């Protein structure tokens, strides 16, 4: 009897929704998605300073507000609704989470306050080949030199990699996989912005050539940390997907209420009414999936990997399908550039691939449920 938001959590949701209604309206999204940076530093500052969102789930000792994953999930859900253009997922779900999970107190003290305060934009550079979110996919090499560790290799699809001040990197050390911190301005680091299908979220490819890096924790302990970061980020991304999916349902239902064809609002036709009902039904199932993940994260349960893969598989599919159905309900107009339906559809598609496709997570679940051996799954 615990899957229930507290009044405080409901208030947080209302506050964030209000804020984003003002700061991430459709015209703002369209303006920012056309910029290279892809976000508005002033709004980012307000999110950090006024609302404390960047440090929401960071313990107070590192400058955060000390809330938990459920609160964080609410924020992601609202950002997904509003298609917010900002390096929040990369900073909060990836970089901050990596530091929170590592065993390196010094690094935490050095780096977390900047992230929590929104002064540092962070990200994680992990992926090298499409779809390879597993440990074996990490081939970038970390070598110890007299001057410290240096990295050589290439990372692709790095979220907000073009603007990140702090890049957490998974790299192969002689002992295993290590977690490293690289300064966004480090020598030997080449960043190339890559145009994205979902223009509301930016990516860069990064090349490391003898790039100095700080080892975080033990040089064989990186994958333990990264695995948990991937699970956590998958759940938070799932919450974002749920927010977007619900907005798509609302857009479709709203249009169906007013659009008249054959002398009736199209929503009075069962073909459209029932399609909308199915969309809502799937959105509610996805919401249960995301909340399940959040509650397991909050309880720090052993089921986090299970819940994370469930949430990512389920919410990815729901968002893509619902955003596609929303286009269908809108008819021709929903297929145009000027209508926002495609923005949600493309965000859904990009989220689907990020941190592992639904098929990838189903494979992980099949292995965990004893249905077959996993590919690239340890433990």
């Amino acid at each position, binding site marked *: *009897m615990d899957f229930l938001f507290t009044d405080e959590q409901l208030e947080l949701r209302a506050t964030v929704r209000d804020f984003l209604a003002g700061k991430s309206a459709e015209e703002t999204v369209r303006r920012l998605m056309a910029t290279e940076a892809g976000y508005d530093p002033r709004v980012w500052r307000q999110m950090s300073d006024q609302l404390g969102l960047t440090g929401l789930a960071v313990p107070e000792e590192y400058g955060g507000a000390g809330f938990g994953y459920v609160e964080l999930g609410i924020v992601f859900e609202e950002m997904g609704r509003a298609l917010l253009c900002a390096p929040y997922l990369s900073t909060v779900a990836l970089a901050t989470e990596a530091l929170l999970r590592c065993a390196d107190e010094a690094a935490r003290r050095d780096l977390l306050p900047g992230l929590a305060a929104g002064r540092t934009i962070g990200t994680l550079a992990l992926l090298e080949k499409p779809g390879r979110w597993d440990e074996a996919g990490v081939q970038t090499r970390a070598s110890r030199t007299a001057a410290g560790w240096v990295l050589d290799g290439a990372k692709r699809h790095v979220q907000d990699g073009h603007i990140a001040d702090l890049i957490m990197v998974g790299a192969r050390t002689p002992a295993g996989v290590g977690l490293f911190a690289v300064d966004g301005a480090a020598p030997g680091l080449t960043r190339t912005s890559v145009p994205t299908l979902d223009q509301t979220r930016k990516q860069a490819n990064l090349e490391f050539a003898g790039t100095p890096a700080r080892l975080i924790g033990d040089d064989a302990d990186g994958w333990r940390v990264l695995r948990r970061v991937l699970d956590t980020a998958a759940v938070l991304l799932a919450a974002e997907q749920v927010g977007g999916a619900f907005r798509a349902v609302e857009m479709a239902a709203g249009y169906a209420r007013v659009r008249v064809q054959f002398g009736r609002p199209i929503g009075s036709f069962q073909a459209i009414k029932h399609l909308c009902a199915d969309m809502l039904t799937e959105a509610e199932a996805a919401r249960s*999936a995301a909340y399940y993940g959040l509650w397991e994260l909050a309880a720090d349960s052993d089921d986090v990997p299970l819940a994370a893969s469930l949430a990512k598989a389920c919410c990815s599919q729901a968002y893509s399908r619902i955003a596609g159905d929303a286009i269908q309900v809108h008819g021709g107009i929903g297929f145009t550039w000027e209508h926002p339906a495609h923005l949600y559809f493309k965000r859904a598609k990009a989220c689907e691939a990020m941190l592992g496709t639904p098929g990838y997570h189903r494979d992980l679940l099949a292995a965990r449920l004893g249905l*077959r051996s996993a590919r690239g799954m340890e433990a």
Partner: protein
Amino acid sequence: MDIEIRPEDQPFADEVQRWLDEHLVGEFAEHRGVGGPDDPAAWELRLRWEKKLSAGRWLGLTWPPEYGGRGATLSQAIIFEYLYARAQAPYRLGVQGQDLFGPTLLMFGTPGQKARFLPKILAAEEFWGQGFSEPDAGSDLASVRTRARLDGDDWMIDGQKIWMTFGTSADWLYVLCRTDPRAARHRGLSLLIVPARQPGVEIRPVTNMLGDGGFCEVFFTAARTRADLVVGAPGDGWKVAMAALGVERGTLLIPQQLGFEREAEHVLELARGRAGATGLSHRLVDAWIAVRLMRVTTLRTIGELVAGREPGAQAATSKLYASVQHQRLLELATELLADDMTVTGGGYALKALQRAFLLSRAETIYGGSSQIQRNIIGERVLGLPREPRPGSTGG
């Protein structure tokens, strides 16, 4: 499925568990999980069990003590259902009286009606049958034609009802009748309480596709009931019937959910034992996901109910979701059983998964078909316009 037991409810939970440990033994323990909402299996044994439950005052927990209840909180009722279902105690026979008619009478009945009927329900002495649907009023209840007219001190009832669960065992029926033939559709209906065992009432089992007879049809031919045995005012029948259908049944979600989880585990176990189920792995994962999500959704709804909040949209979508997903789960089970699925025991004795598979076809029909559910979700939750009333039929 894990529900949270708050500290203040722990003594109650302990009491429930103790009672179950003591009583769920012998023949009852041998018939764990027997029966279902429409499944008359092991009737006599379940009747004996239900008398024990009554003696222990475990029926109608939330009802006022004056009618035999305990005045328990919803939270306690949920704990009871959870522990009860987890122990796989026999499925209760008196659902119609305990979970549907009783709560409706508590809302709309006169003190005399409540005093007369409610204690007998909780004593497991009188059983009830619901007379709502008719052959020509299935999804469209407003068009019921069974009529009742006052004849001296009695109502006289003529007509036909169908899909009455456990009708042949009912002592009393609650019957939606047209009492004002001039009023249109929703208006002019009344909900009457009718004694089942009288010459004017003929109850015949309808065999379903499993070969079972859980459902009945009922013929009323100048059947009689006392003039005061109407629930609510005459003419309020639609309102009362809708309330009966909408009675908060959060507690019923729990045995259903635990049943789904057991079935899903059974199906996964089948798959683990079958070489060559690899190609089905994603469908198996999806079935498992669906059952897990039903759990979370159930807990979300129960959480809201216990907190006294208005349940969210998930409460409206969950029946559609569950019935569709349950069909998929059992379709997968039949595919895993392969040729084994095609044979039965003697006398058309079906295996558990065969029964569940066939019964699952009814889950998208009874209690509001999937089509009706989508109308409700579309109109009540999403605010979409209703179908226009027919003017002329299009060319």
